[in-house]
């Protein structure tokens, strides 16, 4: 005995609704004999007669009322499943979850998202401004982006672009007209920057200070460049941030200076080695890497 299929369920329902195989055949664009054969095959699959043949019409047997109700559920559930397939195909059902630090999220990632949405207009995306490594490890993000991260073996790193640490000062600062500044010249200034333990950029900046024989002692720390820039507008007199920040956002009254010696940083893309990417996430990776 073969298994009842969703198509057989739809045809049994149609025959019940129309009362004749001719009208059911018209609705499905099939021949009447094809419908009759499917009804007979379906009854064999179910192991019970569903209809009585009376005066050329197929009448539902009284004991098959509950069966017909259950076939309606099959039809409805299969319709839902077809909608799900369409939603999956468009990227609507599975949102793309990207975790990035703000300056990467608002710059590189925003640009790539615009390209992705051009080909997938119904796609949904969730841009998470948090700790990308933690979001990726917890499975709450599909792709992560951050500067020079320190990660465990289960995360694959792809270097994407090079940048550098730059200094930010207010427009009225004597250094503002200089264009570049040496780290040593910043000694003694009130530095607003990153924590060396929790931030990879903080670690790189602290290392550069050590190599120059300087103390790294910011008077205030914040997790992201964007927060540092907002704070500098009110307090402190110099900040060290990533060079992508000004590409993503303008800050009125702040001037960017190159640092010498240069402190290079790398934007890295992160994916979990053990989790396959969704179609949208894979497409995003292609866009970002220019594949």
């Amino acid at each position: 005995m073969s298994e009842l299929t969703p198509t057989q369920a739809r045809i049994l329902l149609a025959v019940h609704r129309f009362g004749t195989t001719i009208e059911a055949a018209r609705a499905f664009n099939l021949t009447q004999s094809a419908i009759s054969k499917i009804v007979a095959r379906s009854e064999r699959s179910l192991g019970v007669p569903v209809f009585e043949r009376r005066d050329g019409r197929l009448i539902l047997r009284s004991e098959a009322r509950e069966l017909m109700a259950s076939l309606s559920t099959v039809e409805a559930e299969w319709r839902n499943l077809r909608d799900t397939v369409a939603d999956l195909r468009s990227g609507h059902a599975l949102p793309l979850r990207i975790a990035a630090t703000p300056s990467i999220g608002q710059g590189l990632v925003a640009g790539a998202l615009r390209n992705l949405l051009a080909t997938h207009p119904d796609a949904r995306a969730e841009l998470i401004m948090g700790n990308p490594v933690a979001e990726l490890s917890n499975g709450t993000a599909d792709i992560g982006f951050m500067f020079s991260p320190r990660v465990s073996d289960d995360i694959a790193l792809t270097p994407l672009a090079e940048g550098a640490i730059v200094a930010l000062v207010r427009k009225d600062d004597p250094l503002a007209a200089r264009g570049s500044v040496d780290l040593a010249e910043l000694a003694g200034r009130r530095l607003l920057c990153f924590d060396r333990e929790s931030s990879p950029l903080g670690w790189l900046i602290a290392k550069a200070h050590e190599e120059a024989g300087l103390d790294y002692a910011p008077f205030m720390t914040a997790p992201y460049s964007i927060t540092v820039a907002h704070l500098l507008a009110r307090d402190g007199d110099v900040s060290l941030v990533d060079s992508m920040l000004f590409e993503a956002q303008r800050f009125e009254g702040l001037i960017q200076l190159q640092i010498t010696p240069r402190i290079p940083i790398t934007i890295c893309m992160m994916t979990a080695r053990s989790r396959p990417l969704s179609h949208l996430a894979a497409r995003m990776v292609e866009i970002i890497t220019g594949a």
Partner: protein
Amino acid sequence: MKLSSLQVLDAFVRLGGTGEAAQGLEMSQSAVIKALRLAEFELGLNLVTTLQGRLMPTPEAQALTQRAQPAFAALRRARHEADMMRVGMVDRLRIVTVPGLAHSILPPAITAVRRAIGDAAPVEIMFDHVAAHLAAGDADLAITYGPLPNEGLRNITLQESPLVCVFFQTDPLAARDEIGLEDLAGRRLISYGPDGFSSADSFQQALTKTGLASRISITVRHTDSACHLVREGCGVAIVDGFVISSGLTEGLAVRPLRASPAVIAYAHHREDSHLQHSGRVLITCLMEPAP
């Protein structure tokens, strides 16, 4: 969207690989891979990807199979209805309940119904997901430790009982008329675990109010298991007093727990559907405590 392709995809996702799916479906691995590729082509979705040298389901495959479960369940229900037609059980009374009550107050009540309406009342008993079965129309009547808060469901109080303790007849506790909490100190306790669905379950509330909920060492789903464990010397069972009518406690001592809150058995049915005669008679029989 072919049922057979979805079944292969479901096995692939559930069992975690093409080899495992092939084993589970008793087909060759190459046939599984071919079916998956065909499904990808038909649905326009990436369902399989290679990760660390192994074919793995994509997030789309996982989402699709998850959403296919109600469709599979609808087909199973249709087949079940056909089976019921074949064995002459179309007009059966469908009861969904929990094992504790199915093995205590329900059997004598069903016997009484069959006696009352001439042995012509086919009955189907099912367990788990009580409210969902009622809401979906899969069951006519539910018997639980309720009440169920779901809108559109009627709660009917059937019987009340205190918690009782079940132990060996040779246990020193057998000399007492009732058992106090202090008598249970140092004893290993056996009882029903929460079902995770009914937060207002009067049995669990009684256990909590008496302070015994956190003292249960062995949880069971069936009264039979609790009594067997007592016979094996695993501890003292804390169950509802309805169990006394079941004969399961034969050869064991049963004593009420002093100052126990009432455990209440409820019947539930949908307000918008007519409960058949056998169901109404069953409720009446369930309201009569066992002699």
